[in-house]
């Protein structure tokens, strides 16, 4: 099997491949000079499709796909994502591209800035706005964090195409059970310490949400301070930060097959966005967040300052999961043994915005 790693950076996309997930071949930059905030592998078809959110600071965003692992790229003449004329808004950035479950093999979701959800029914070539979320009465009160106001997480239910959970910053977690017609906030138990009412119905600054591999009603959320778990599909959340050295950070990911195993990358605090103890390390839990332990064998052992952004930590779908992360210093690391040991994939790339991995 060939293992593939897509590395989206501030100035281009890099595609890496490996036979053993320890030694990597890294391409030169695709879309040089363009920011790649989102990338996905769609492995549901006969050949893996790479979908890339390509963002030009001058010429706007687009979604481009490749069915030959980056040898050629396809982009439709008409904009893949565009607000209908009656709305009068414009897509500023594509923050997330998520293939739906195997029961909807041609459906792909995208999350954008401004906060909107989009659904493609042609494998990710073109997308339609999910109006139910766009027209939500809470919209005027959704705010923008430093990165803008965006739907950055889309989690389609693996077995029920009517159920989708999204996360936006700021705004929080919302979910639909009717295929996107209606949406309800799902933030009970998640603190928004930066608001006058720290326990609002919505308005939380969620940084990333991951779904548990074994229980589709169990999710994990890394918030702007606060790490949480829900076991009832988002009806209520409880803190799982007690055993972490900090509850601040951006990414959180779940093991692809084993329930209860998750990783994150804690930072000191909102006001001090550096790795805790200046150590380059991830934290792993095998009991759904009750206890955590650091994993850093093979990672830089000196003071390390760069952070890992919300989509710059991922797993692959291997039996023994590979774990990957990239930093704003352009360093990319891979683990073939679920985080127990690490090797470098690349160094000195532009700031890493996202990573995604798959086998082919």
């Amino acid at each position, binding site marked *: 099997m060939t293992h593939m790693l897509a590395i989206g950076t501030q100035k281009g996309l890099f595609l890496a491949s490996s036979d053993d997930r320890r030694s990597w071949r890294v391409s030169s930059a695709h879309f040089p000079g363009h920011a790649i905030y989102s990338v996905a592998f769609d492995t549901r078809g006969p050949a893996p499709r790479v979908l890339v959110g390509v963002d*030009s*600071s*001058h*010429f*706007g965003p687009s979604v481009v796909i490749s069915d030959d692992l980056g040898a050629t790229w396809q*982009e439709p*003449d*008409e*904009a893949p994502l*565009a*607000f209908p*004329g009656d709305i*009068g*808004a*414009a*897509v500023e950035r594509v923050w997330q591209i998520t293939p739906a479950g195997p029961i909807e093999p041609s459906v792909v979701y995208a999350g954008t800035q401004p906060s909107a959800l989009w659904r493609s029914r042609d494998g990710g070539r073109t997308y339609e706005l999910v109006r139910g979320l766009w027209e939500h009465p809470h919209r005027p009160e959704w705010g923008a964090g430093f990165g803008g106001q965006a739907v950055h997480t889309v989690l389609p239910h693996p077995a029920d195409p009517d159920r989708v959970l999204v996360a936006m910053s700021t705004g929080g977690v919302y979910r639909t059970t009717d295929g996107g017609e209606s949406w309800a906030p799902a933030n009970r138990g998640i603190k928004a310490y930066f608001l006058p009412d720290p326990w609002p119905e919505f308005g939380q600054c969620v940084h990333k949400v991951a779904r548990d591999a074994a229980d589709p009603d169990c999710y994990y959320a890394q918030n702007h301070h606060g790490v949480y778990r829900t076991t009832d599909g988002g009806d209520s959340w409880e803190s799982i930060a007690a055993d972490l050295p900090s509850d601040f950070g951006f990414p959180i990911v779940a093991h692809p097959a084993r329930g209860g195993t998750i990783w994150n990358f804690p930072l000191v605090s909102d006001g001090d966005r550096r790795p805790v103890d200046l150590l380059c390390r991830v934290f792993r839990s095998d009991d759904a967040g009750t206890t955590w332990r650091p994993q850093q064998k093979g990672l830089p052992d000196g003071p390390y300052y760069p952070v890992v952004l919300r989509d710059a930590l991922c797993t692959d779908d291997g039996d023994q999961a590979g774990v990957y992360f990239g930093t704003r210093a352009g360093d990319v690391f891979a683990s073939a043994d679920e985080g127990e040991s690490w090797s470098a994939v690349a160094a000195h790339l532009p700031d890493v915005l996202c990573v995604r991995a798959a086998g082919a």
Partner: protein
Amino acid sequence: MPTLLIPGVLRAEAGGAPRLEVAASGSLGAVLDEVGERWPRLERRIRDESGALRRYVNVYVDGEDCRRSGGLETPVPAGAEIQVLPSVAGG
């Protein structure tokens, strides 16, 4: 017939052409509407789907910055030269 001058970075969206002749005249908006019909990928690099000029794209009509001369309503006489240039921006 107005002529559109295409910067190198956008020529792939214009079939490689450095200059395009358009039939429409009257206003910059009308010219860009025609560009959207004939070269849609080029037009959406210049304007977003709400119809607004992208923030870091500048368009000059006979040497005048359209943002100072009426925006998309800037008059475009037959024979005008319209230059599209990326602005100085980015990091």
